[in-house]
């Protein structure tokens, strides 16, 4: 099994007719994902390499029964696209858009929670989700993933997500699902959501978690793990040597005062029984050992 998506997930791409949307949408379809429709206002009736395009999410959902959406539109339109997806009946939304204003993210997140409590948003500004061999929504390269489990991956960092997948795949350790939650100020899905889903997924036997400096999500995850996680977790936190007060790419990756340091996060996770590693390679090796011992 996998979490959030599987081989039956039907996906629409909001922004399929754009450059990025076309590239990633087709790439996802080539991977085997059931990409059933695109949505671009004003381009309804056309198609992108055989994928029909609709003017609205509602039309696309009515025509195809899709339950997931891949939002790949520029920042000024992203919040609107996410809300349109929820209003149109989509229950799983992946938004890779980077650069959405924080105010828009705050309003969008809370509107979803308040008005559409059954809808999950992944991202924005995340690499997406891949269940190797089943479904790939987002910009992760399918080549570096390996089907068959038994490891779940959840990561706040884009490139380190790929690194984590790669470290496992080259050693022959497959993944059930790899979720990139992104490092934006108001992520729709957080570590705990993913840990909880992995804990409930019978095929996932262990979880690799990639965090980074800033915020307190890793500390909250550690607390959750203490109380609820029975499966082994390996973690790596990027940014041990990052200087305080500087933004390192993500809005999330900034240390304020003594809060959000890699050291604090690593200590919290260690205290929760997580195997904390010093670099991605070490984390990959630790997971290989754990999987071998299962």
């Amino acid at each position: 099994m996998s979490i959030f998506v599987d081989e039956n997930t039907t996906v629409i791409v909001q922004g399929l007719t754009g450059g990025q949307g076309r590239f990633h949408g087709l790439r996802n379809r080539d991977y085997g994902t059931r990409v059933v429709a695109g949505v671009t206002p004003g381009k309804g009736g056309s198609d992108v390499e055989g994928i029909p395009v609709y003017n609205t999410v509602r039309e696309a959902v009515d025509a195809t029964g899709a339950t997931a959406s891949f939002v790949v539109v520029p920042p000024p339109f992203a919040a609107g696209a996410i809300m349109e997806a929820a209003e149109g009946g989509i229950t799983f939304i992946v938004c890779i858009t980077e650069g959405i204003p924080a105010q828009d993210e705050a309003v969008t997140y809370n509107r979803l929670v308040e008005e559409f409590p059954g809808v999950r948003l992944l991202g924005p500004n995340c690499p997406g989700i891949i269940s190797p061999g089943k479904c790939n929504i987002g910009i992760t390269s399918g080549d570096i993933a390996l089907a068959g489990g038994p490891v779940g991956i959840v990561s706040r960092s884009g490139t380190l997500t790929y690194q984590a997948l790669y470290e496992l795949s080259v050693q022959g350790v497959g993944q059930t699902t790899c979720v990139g939650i992104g490092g934006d100020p108001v992520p729709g899905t957080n570590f705990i959501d993913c840990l909880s889903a992995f804990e409930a997924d019978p095929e996932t036997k262990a979880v690799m978690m990639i965090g980074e400096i800033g915020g307190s999500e890793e500390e909250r995850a550690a607390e959750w793990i203490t109380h609820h996680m029975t499966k082994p977790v390996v973690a790596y936190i990027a940014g041990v040597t990052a200087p305080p007060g500087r933004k390192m790419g993500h809005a999330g990756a900034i240390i304020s005062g003594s809060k959000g340091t890699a050291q604090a996060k690593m200590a919290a996770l260690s205290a929760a029984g997580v195997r904390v590693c010093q670099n991605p390679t070490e984390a990959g090796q630790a997971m290989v050992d754990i999987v071998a011992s299962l």
Partner: protein
Amino acid sequence: MDLFEYQGKQYFARYGIAVSPGGVADTVDEALAVAERVGYPVVVKAQVKVGGRGKAGGVKLAANADEVRTHAGTILGLDIKGHVVRRLWIERASDIAREYYASFTLDRPNKVHLGMLSAQGGVEIETVAQEDPDAIAMLSIDPVRGLDLATARRWVAEAGLDEEARAQAAELLVKLYECYTKGDCDLAEINPLILTTAGTVHALDAKVTLDENASYRHPEWDEFRATETEDPRERRAKEKGLNYIGLDGDVGIIANGAGLAMSTLDVVNQVGGSAANFLDIGGGANADVMAAALELINSDPKVKVIFVNVFGGITRVDEVATGVLEALGRVTITSPIVLRLDGTNAVEGRAILAPHLSDTLITEPTMLDAARRAVAIANA
């Protein structure tokens, strides 16, 4: 983007938030002109994006033209924690009866907006938060609903603002929230927010951080951007679309993705080295980008070795290898380069580089190996 105090006040004024009458001055003469216009006594305030300017002598009261001349002359050019004062804000001095604190920011763990209001303003709010947390009235605000006047009235009472200040403060807070949200601020802070002896409430300072992601809908921010005084290397990097932060070590770092770049710093540190910079070249890694990145690192005299750490996800490693070779053909790099190229098409990429490898162009199979090699060269 952090604003200067005077810019913050200009931004506040757009949203109807009361500030002291004042003006900007880059010279002593301009300072005098502003002072004459707003009326004495005035306060002469250094415009620097760093705290503690008061203690550093950057804020002075002037009762007359002579004093304005003296203080403006002293403060202009003053070095405050490495920030040289180039501009002053001259404003009419206020008769302060009480100092409060007010701010709005994002409560990230709870994904709502957080208002902080305290009857104890004029001091570091972190100090108040530590010593007397009850003195700060925290208000969680649902971004969907926002802050209305009734709630603001409840809030000012809860925070224990003096009664004569409450009605005005409540209205001001609603405007400040509007500035924070519609104005796309990451932070909108007033410290102190004052009650004057005449019974009026206004902002005596302004600390505003704008969310760069929202700049597309704020053409008015251009004038703020014009005054940004960055590290020239960081500015050049930004112009090239690179995310660069200068550090103190001697190992130059180039990586794709912020997480991988941070991780690269960590690994270099772990094996006994120290990074000269953080540099994320993002998803693209063509010759242009790679050339710009190598040139940028090369211009840092501290750098003894350059560590290129690329993981091919979307980016194909063979393209990266080609990019590096093209870049080396276009710019002269003085430091040795250690590359770790992994991921999509890594084999092809390494093959492309193979004929060109030398003592100054080295590949290593893993991140850790590459870090060790780079640090060994730097420490040699």
